[in-house]
């Protein structure tokens, strides 16, 4: 097999992941796009490992490690997303602008984590 086939497929998958990370608003969809990018990297690693016939299987072992790290990343990321949802009642990444410098754009008053929202969230979750 020519090496250009898996290389081109992984490049296209990586670009799709880049588009998803930049264009999506929902945080879970952003996590899905990150998974697409990690899969593109995995495909590249496997293809080049098979191409160079690595005796230590470095590419495939690193692919397994990347899969494990992706699982840990998606677990932690979903925990953080759920925490944000519990505090803010929404997970749109372009409206979470509390840490932005200007702090004016698209930050409505109801999205602040004031005491009422937190209290309501904890009451409804308990």
């Amino acid at each position, binding site marked *: *097999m*020519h*090496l*250009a*086939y*898996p*290389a*081109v*497929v992984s*490049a*296209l*998958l*990586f*670009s*799709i992941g*880049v*588009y998803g990370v*930049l*264009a*999506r*608003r929902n945080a*879970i*969809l952003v*996590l*899905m*796009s990150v998974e*697409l990018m990690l*899969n593109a990297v*995995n*495909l590249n690693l*496997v*293809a080049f490992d*098979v*191409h160079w016939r690595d005796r*230590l*299987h*470095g590419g*495939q*072992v690193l*692919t*397994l490690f990347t*899969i*494990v790290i*992706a*699982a*840990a*990343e*998606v*677990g932690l990321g*979903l*925990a953080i997303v*759920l*925490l944000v*949802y519990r505090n803010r009642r929404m*997970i*749109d990444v*372009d409206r979470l602008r509390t840490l932005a410098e200007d702090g004016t754009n698209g930050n409505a008053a109801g999205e602040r984590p004031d*005491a009422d929202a937190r*209290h309501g969230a904890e009451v409804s*979750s308990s």
Partner: protein
Amino acid sequence: MTGPEVVFTLLGVVAVGSGIMVVTTRQLVHAALWLVVSFGALAGGYLVLTAEFVAWVQVLIYVGAVVVLLLFGIMLTRAPIGESEDLDSGNRWVALGVALATAGVLVTVLVMGFRDAYTPLKGDQGAAEGLGASIFRTWVLPFEVLSVLLLAALVGAIVLSRSDIGPQDPASGNGKGNR
């Protein structure tokens, strides 16, 4: 085109097409299900590349665990089931430009660099025996470090998602902003 190239091209078309569906569909649950299709096609691609152990790990962890985790995330954030109109943010055209530029640069460079590279596919590179021996002989230290990392990540996820620990009373004043 030889036989494996044809099969890999078909699987690649399926993977890339379902990936495009993941980032363009208007329904959250459908995005997760298209992700299953994309990961399955990539596992088939690993099988064509004779990396069979990686293919089964991909099916087990990605299709079995990660997608289920994402579906639980969709469910727990009370996402709407039907079509939702505002899944794309305002900078999607800029994002499309960046993605097309990335695809152009990467595909051009890879095709120019590896146009003549040919890989003979023999069936002994990705078997579980050699891979396991390599993991537990050469790469055993990163393996152990990774197991500790996975444990730390799981403990962190549990701590983050529990609501009965941490700052308890929001009315007492010092609970806010501590997290």
